[in-house]
């Protein structure tokens, strides 16, 4: 907990102040994470993958200011609401999406005592809360009084519910191996684990749960409605789906929600499969981990996000029926088999 960090330095602060600091840090992390992912991957990596440079002028160095400028532009835009829109629901929808992103960050540990809350059902809390955004998306689609928006929202709901299952089932294997659902506990289990008695790199669960990792990445991609699973926002047929009537800062909220969630999902994947904020060879309980831990986790997040965005820029969009088929006929059976095999290994080996 944060107050332990300060207490160890001889500073004693109360619960209210601690909570305020944590909230501020998480509130800052969402736009910062969204900006970093957006700039590094969406603007620069995508450009280089298409043999072009991307923005080069804003900010002086390789266009690093581009997205900040875009954000400021969104703030200046007129706030347009369709005449027939359900005004209150229309205004609330982006906030609901952003709140779901915000709540995911609550359980992600970034250091030995750096987390908002270490819940004993941490993984499932994070995945459950992340699917709250479906409600925001449905609200946005329904309140916009537009056919495109409604179709987009319906597609999003169908997709997010379908891929919620493989996402959860993929995590079950990790939880069984770690024997805890607390994210901090999973980090510890990976740091202290051993591969057949060889414990110099611990046991990052990507080695034993590589099927689970693949399933998690595919399902997370679908949860984020990123290509190739971007049917809900398919520009070529639905213009931009449930966001079609949104302008200005409300649209910015959706954008931050999308990339903030991508950052959060990368963090969860890094925690579940790559050992989170620990590095093999470093002492988990040491004081310096409070500074090294976040850096290690950030590096791992960027690694996972690279995989995510790499797939995003490579594959063309699935058709709606292919999308559903992939989830129900391939991913879910595969994740159930993965659980059974993991259980068999745990019981008999």
């Amino acid at each position: 907990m944060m107050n332990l960090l300060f207490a160890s330095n001889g500073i004693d602060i109360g619960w209210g102040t601690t909570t305020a600091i944590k909230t501020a840090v998480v509130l800052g992390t969402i736009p910062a994470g969204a900006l970093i992912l957006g700039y590094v991957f969406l603007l620069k990596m995508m450009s280089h993958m298409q043999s072009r440079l991307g923005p080069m002028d804003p900010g002086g160095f390789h266009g690093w200011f581009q997205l900040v400028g875009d954000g400021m532009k969104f703030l200046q835009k007129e706030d347009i609401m369709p005449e027939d829109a359900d005004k209150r629901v229309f205004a609330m929808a982006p906030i609901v999406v952003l709140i779901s992103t915000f709540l995911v960050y609550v359980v992600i540990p970034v250091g030995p005592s750096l987390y908002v809350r270490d819940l004993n059902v941490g993984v499932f809390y994070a995945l459950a809360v992340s699917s709250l955004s479906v409600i925001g998306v449905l609200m946005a689609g329904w309140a916009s009084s537009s056919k495109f928006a409604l179709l987009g929202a319906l597609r999003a709901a169908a997709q997010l519910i379908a891929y919620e299952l493989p996402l959860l089932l993929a995590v079950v294997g990790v939880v069984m191996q770690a024997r805890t659902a607390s994210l901090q506990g999973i980090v510890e289990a990976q740091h202290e684990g051993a591969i057949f008695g060889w414990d110099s790199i611990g046991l990052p669960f990507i080695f034993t749960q590589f099927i689970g990792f693949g399933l998690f990445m595919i399902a997370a991609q679908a949860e984020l409605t990123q290509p190739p699973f971007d049917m809900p926002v398919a520009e070529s047929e639905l213009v931009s789906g449930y966001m079609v009537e949104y302008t200005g800062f409300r649209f910015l909220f959706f954008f931050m929600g999308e990339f903030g969630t991508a950052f959060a999902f990368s963090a969860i994947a890094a925690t579940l499969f790559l050992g989170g904020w620990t590095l093999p060879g470093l002492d988990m309980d040491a004081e310096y981990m409070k500074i090294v831990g976040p850096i290690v986790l950030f590096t791992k997040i960027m690694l996972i996000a690279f995989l995510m965005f790499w797939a995003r820029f490579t594959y063309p969009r699935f058709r709606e029926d292919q999308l559903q088929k992939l989830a129900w006929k391939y991913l879910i059976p595969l994740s159930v088999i993965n659980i059974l095999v993991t259980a068999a290994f745990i019981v008999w080996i």
Partner: protein
Amino acid sequence: MAFKLPGVIKGLTVPFRTMTQPTVTVQYPHEKEELAPRTRGVIALKEENCTACMLCSRSCPDWCIYIEGHKEKAPPRREGGKERLVNILDRFDIDYGLCMYCGICVEVCPFDALFWSPEFEYSEFKIAKLLHDKDVLGEWMETVPEVEPLEAGAVAPKGAK
């Protein structure tokens, strides 16, 4: 669903390989691209070759060439000969707001008065300034490159010495 895994993975390698290679982008205002030898940038006029025959103006699909001229009497070439009539060019304008850079005027000119120049940086804030008169068109003559030598084995053009 035919789910072909090797193709899916091969697909991932293509953008990755592209990413590791240098980009093809040229940062235009900061650096300039190397232009092709026969770039169609702007049309230059060699005024002394022009006879105001109007062929270019009449063949222009956009009607963007404006020519005015008059005839003047000139002294005879030979002693005791007849006085000659010579065409004098008063106005030769090309409206680059209309021109579509087809190059028919350059092709059709029987006296080699029009040339392609690779210069392209002559945009203006006022569209009227895109009308280049014969003085401006004459200045472009300095930027016309030398004729490229023919490739080895090429058929010699008609009338070449």
